[in-house]
């Protein structure tokens, strides 16, 4: 290849340097937050004068933070289940159906990815006002489902398209009913797509803040909403601790998704 890395000579050093700088630019804010969460300074002083787990203790002693954590987790969990189930059924229709307007329907399902989130949030807020769903668990789940569903549909549709339909047909010829063939053969065949649909649906809800701010009530606040709210009142290192937990969970799930993809390729 013309731009073979091993033949770049002196330019190689420059290239490595640029890569390191870009990586640092992307990672430093995260590392800073993680470092501050363990720092002993009350005023988020950097570098931290000493190290402590005090902010984590404070965090786990505060029932409001715990409640937000549970709220976020419960909403994300329900959104994940619904998003995968609906995404699975929609994907079967979109990849195997032969009805008119199939492509238009696929595009419609994916619009929440393109639409500015704030527009979606305002629209959902106005709509849910009439249904008295604002500030409720159901409202939160429905709103987050809208943004999670495109991830599910993309992941599951891709997996279904790659899955050779003759394999399902073979199961039917073997004596399985069409439903049994889907459950025993097709679903295991697309399981990687299902898992990544679940991971991305969970994350779509877990770290979503714009819609959540519109949906939240004083008694029902997700973690990102409480971080945002607390931040406006005071700058406590507890926020750094919460953020670190948020980042850790997100990173763990992303790593899992990457691992599965690598596994599928080998």
């Amino acid at each position, binding site marked *: 290849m013309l731009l073979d890395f091993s033949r770049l000579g002196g330019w190689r050093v420059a290239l490595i340097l640029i890569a390191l700088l870009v990586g640092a630019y992307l990672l430093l804010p995260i590392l800073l937050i993680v470092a501050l969460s363990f720092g002993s300074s009350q005023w988020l002083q950097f570098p931290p004068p000493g190290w402590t787990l005090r902010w984590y203790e404070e965090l786990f002693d505060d029932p409001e933070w715990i409640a937000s954590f549970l709220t976020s987790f419960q909403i994300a969990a329900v959104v994940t289940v619904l998003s995968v189930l609906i995404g699975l059924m929609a994907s079967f229709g979109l990849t195997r159906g032969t009805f008119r307007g199939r492509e238009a329907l696929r595009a419609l399902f994916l619009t929440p990815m393109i639409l500015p989130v704030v527009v979606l949030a305002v629209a959902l807020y106005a709509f849910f006002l009439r249904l008295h769903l604002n500030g409720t668990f159901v409202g939160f789940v429905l709103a987050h489902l809208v943004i999670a569903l495109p991830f599910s549909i993309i992941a599951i549709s891709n997996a279904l398209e790659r899955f*050779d339909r*003759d*394999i399902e*047909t*073979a*199961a*039917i*010829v*073997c*004596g*399985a*009913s*069409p439903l*049994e*063939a889907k459950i*025993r*053969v097709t679903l*295991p*065949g697309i*399981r990687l797509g299902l898992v990544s649909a679940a991971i991305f649906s969970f994350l779509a809800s877990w770290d979503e803040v714009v819609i959540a701010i519109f949906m939240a009530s004083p008694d029902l606040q997700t973690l990102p909403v409480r971080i945002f709210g607390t931040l406006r009142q005071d700058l406590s290192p507890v926020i750094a601790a919460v953020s670190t937990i948020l980042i850790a969970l997100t990173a763990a799930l992303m790593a899992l998704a990457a691992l599965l993809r690598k596994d599928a390729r080998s």
Partner: protein
Amino acid sequence: MTFLDIRGVSKSFGNVAAVSDVSLEIARGEFMTFLGPSGSGKSTTLYMIAGFFEPTGGDIRLDGRSILAEPSNRRNIGMVFQRYTLFPHLSVAENVAFPLRVRRRSGAEVSRKVEEMLALVRLERFADRMPAQLSGGQQQRVALARALAYDPPLLLMDEPLSALDKKLREEIQAEIRRIHRETGVTILYVTHDQEEALSLSDRVALFNHGRIEQVGKGRDLYDAPHTRFVAGFVGHSNFLDCTIAARRDVRADIVFPDGSGCADIPLHAAASSGTAARLMIRPDRLQLAAPVPAAGPGIDTTLSDATFIGETFHFAVTTGWGAQVNVRLPAGAPMAHEPVIGERVRLSWNAADARLFAD
């Protein structure tokens, strides 16, 4: 007695007729091959038997009973597909066990049958492997074991070897023949490869444009083709333009464009005197000799090419009116005079080996 009875089956997709009025009777234990070019309706007919398509006309009866009302999963028919269709998340043994498990057979019966089937396809050692760890040939053998695990009375095979290379294909063909002998299962095999069709089957049904052109033993199709399509599709053939000079019953005298003629050729068309026709002769039924007047049918030609390819000599000769004829002679057979390119040679054949088709 007829086991599988295909009666006047048709299938159209919109305005396109894929299969038109196909009738065929297949005996129990027979190995029948559907041969034909792509789009000839052979696979569509197979899919109607499997239950993937519903015929637009006609009936399909298995053992005296119409199967059209039954969905695919209740037809109890075995099938091996063109593409690899092993269940990727199940081991070889579990793949073979699958049809038995959906039939809720007992654990003891399942493991006994799986063992028996893997022994049949000689893959006992691979029971615990995953499909991705097998070669293409091994995967198709497992697919065959899976299709036979529930003792289906009828096994459908849809070009199962087309993804494999030639050597492997021949190996598995031998396996399929052995398994057919050992199990006695009735097999319907689809292929576009005439060699595969001739070497595997008891009888061949040759499809073209959604119809069956001819059904018979491979030998019949080769030696006694009913139509020009059959003659052209099965084996190599030479077609020579000619005109029918006189017609007597099923025989005719013909005249070639240069005025020379032949008498008493078997005729396979309702052609009257004066109409254009084509004379078909297999390249291996021709003889070459020095240009001396000889008895029997023949033409004077010029040798235009000669190739030696091991077992046979390939000659190309050009007739007086410019048509090219291919001749194949066994290399071991003694030739009184080995011709050189450009030399005049007499092309001759036995009257019974030539056939005449209307143009």
